[in-house]
């Protein structure tokens, strides 16, 4: 069943159960929602509400127990591991709360990694890395290794890596969790700017008030179900 490709993510009745110490946990209970291009949305809710599980299911990192997810019109449950990898590589950028950079690669090598997987030539990779580093205010940091950067700088590099291949959607799981409010606010402003200027969609999973304030759309999750889905004025 094909879906409108302007809808980046379409999820239909997603259920995710998993076992923890022989107890079945109902993490997501029948969630329907759509992420459109240019969305700047946040899935919010307390810890254990199923935010990260939902994010994993819609990005193909996890398999729902039941329900369907379309990513840019492709039904992900019908895709092989290799096809899913390629689909994520070309359409989704990931930002995790723990910075997730490869410590043995320089800033430039970390950012260019996805482009390398996409087969972008070296010259073009270098040009785009320098351009994005300038955009995120880390020009001149390309040869540094992640441990030589502050937490905020590392998260900027992680954002740069997620953005550099110009994916349709960036999924950010608690991106400000390890940052102070000033740094977090600066990064969110930067992401919102990118959303407005480049039309890149963002979907956050968070319980940080700062992210909720900056998001244009809030999807409130409670006990694995959507309690509220609202576009802010």
């Amino acid at each position, binding site marked *: 069943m094909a879906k409108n490709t302007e809808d980046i993510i379409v999820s239909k009745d997603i259920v995710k159960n998993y076992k923890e110490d022989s107890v079945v946990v109902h993490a997501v209970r029948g969630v329907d929602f759509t992420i459109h291009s240019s969305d700047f949305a946040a899935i919010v809710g307390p810890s254990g509400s199923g935010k*990260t*599980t939902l994010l*994993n299911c819609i*990005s193909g*990192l*996890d398999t729902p127990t039941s329900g369907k997810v379309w990513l840019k019109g492709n039904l992900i449950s019908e895709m092989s*591991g*290799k096809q899913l*990898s*390629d689909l*994520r*590589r*070309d359409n989704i*950028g*990931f930002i*995790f*709360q*723990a910075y*997730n950079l*490869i*410590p*043995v*690669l320089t800033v430039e090598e970390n950012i260019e*990694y*996805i482009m*390398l*997987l*996409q087969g972008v030539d070296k010259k073009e990779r270098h040009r785009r890395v320098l351009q994005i580093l300038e955009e995120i205010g880390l020009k001149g940091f390309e040869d540094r290794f992640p441990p030589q950067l502050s937490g905020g700088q590392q998260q900027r590099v992680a954002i740069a*890596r*997620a953005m550099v291949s110009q994916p349709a959607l960036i999924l950010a799981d608690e991106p400000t969790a390890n940052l102070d409010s000033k740094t977090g606010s600066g990064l969110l402003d930067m992401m919102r700017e990118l959303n407005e200027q480049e039309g890149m969609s963002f979907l956050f999973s968070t319980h940080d008030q700062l992210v909720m304030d900056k998001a244009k759309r809030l999807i409130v999750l409670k006990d694995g179900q959507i309690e509220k889905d609202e576009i802010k004025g």
Partner: protein
Amino acid sequence: MFYYMKLAWRNIFRNKRRTFIAGTAIGIGLAALIFTDALFVGMKENMIDSVTSSFLGEAQIHRENYRQTQEVEKTIQKPSEVISSLKDNEQVQHFAPRAISYAMITSPANVHSLIVYGIDPDREKSVSEIDENMAEGNYLQKETERGILIGKELAELLEVTVGDRLVVTVSQAQTGQLSQEMLRVSGIFHTYIKEMDKGMAFMKITRLQDMLGLPGGIHEVTVQFTNSDYALQKETSFTQHFSRFGNEAANWPQLMPQMIFVFQMTNFSLSIVAVIIFGVVIFGIINTLFMSLYERMFEFAVLRAVGTRPSGIRKLIIMEAGSLAVVSIIIGIILGFVLTFIMTQTGIDYRGLDFAGATMTQMLYPVMEIRQFIVHPILVFLFTILVSVYPALTAGKMKVADALRRSL
């Protein structure tokens, strides 16, 4: 591919201490393998040398079936033609004719049965080491017609020393009648070979031929070739040429087939050592790779999340194993070279050790060969790659969401 190689190489140095310990463990295994190989090559050369230089020679000519029956009548056919042919043969460096008989040797104190060899003292020097192993007295001289050489153990048994007289009794070839000679001990040899030191005596060939009633009769011709490797071939022009007139020529592997079995056993032993060492290597590598894998589960999960295919993760793990193998091989080659080189200088004293009919008569020195530093490291490398397939498959199969959740 190059990117993964760079990433793999840098990854193994993230935990330098662990890489060093694992690399050293594998390196010690490789060094042990190199050393064992060198030791076995040295042992093999030593055994061949012990066998061929001490008395057997690299080839022998006998009358057909003489070796099986040891009958004294079975002397070499057309001996003068054989000798003349040996003199003209380009492959032959030295040769020595021998007359052989079972005998009884008697001293005032004791009596003992043995094999007595009639030798040409000058020619014998070039094919055996009896002259070099004289413990007391002198080797047979041209002028000492009635001299006899006996081994150290036999001298002790007979309670004789240099200059003492002994009676040698043999059975004559044609008549079967006993023939006796009183001989004087010219010298006492000590070869470390028990069979020789207790069970052999040497006298002049002409004297023994007279005693046996076989004037000019030869039972055996021992040969040394210009190139020792020549004797290792199964069929040679030498054996073909001298296996005629009712005679048979054989190279030392045919004369001592048990030695070939020993060498096969040696190769098998080396394989066992290799298997044990590779067993250690397996656990070293699997342990290191799995530790590294579980430590970096989140990182691998992130790589998978951003679009790295499972095959990419597998490649990365295999390349990390390859990088670890390179480090281990460098350590192993250095350790192996140093250890083997030291032993090639000091040697190991196995003299007197009897093994499969061959007695070590010289110090054992390991022999280094380029092959040991190429073949074994390549095997370790290939084996490491092979072993890394298991952790690589495990990493490739990981569930990204689980890995991300567990790591967080």
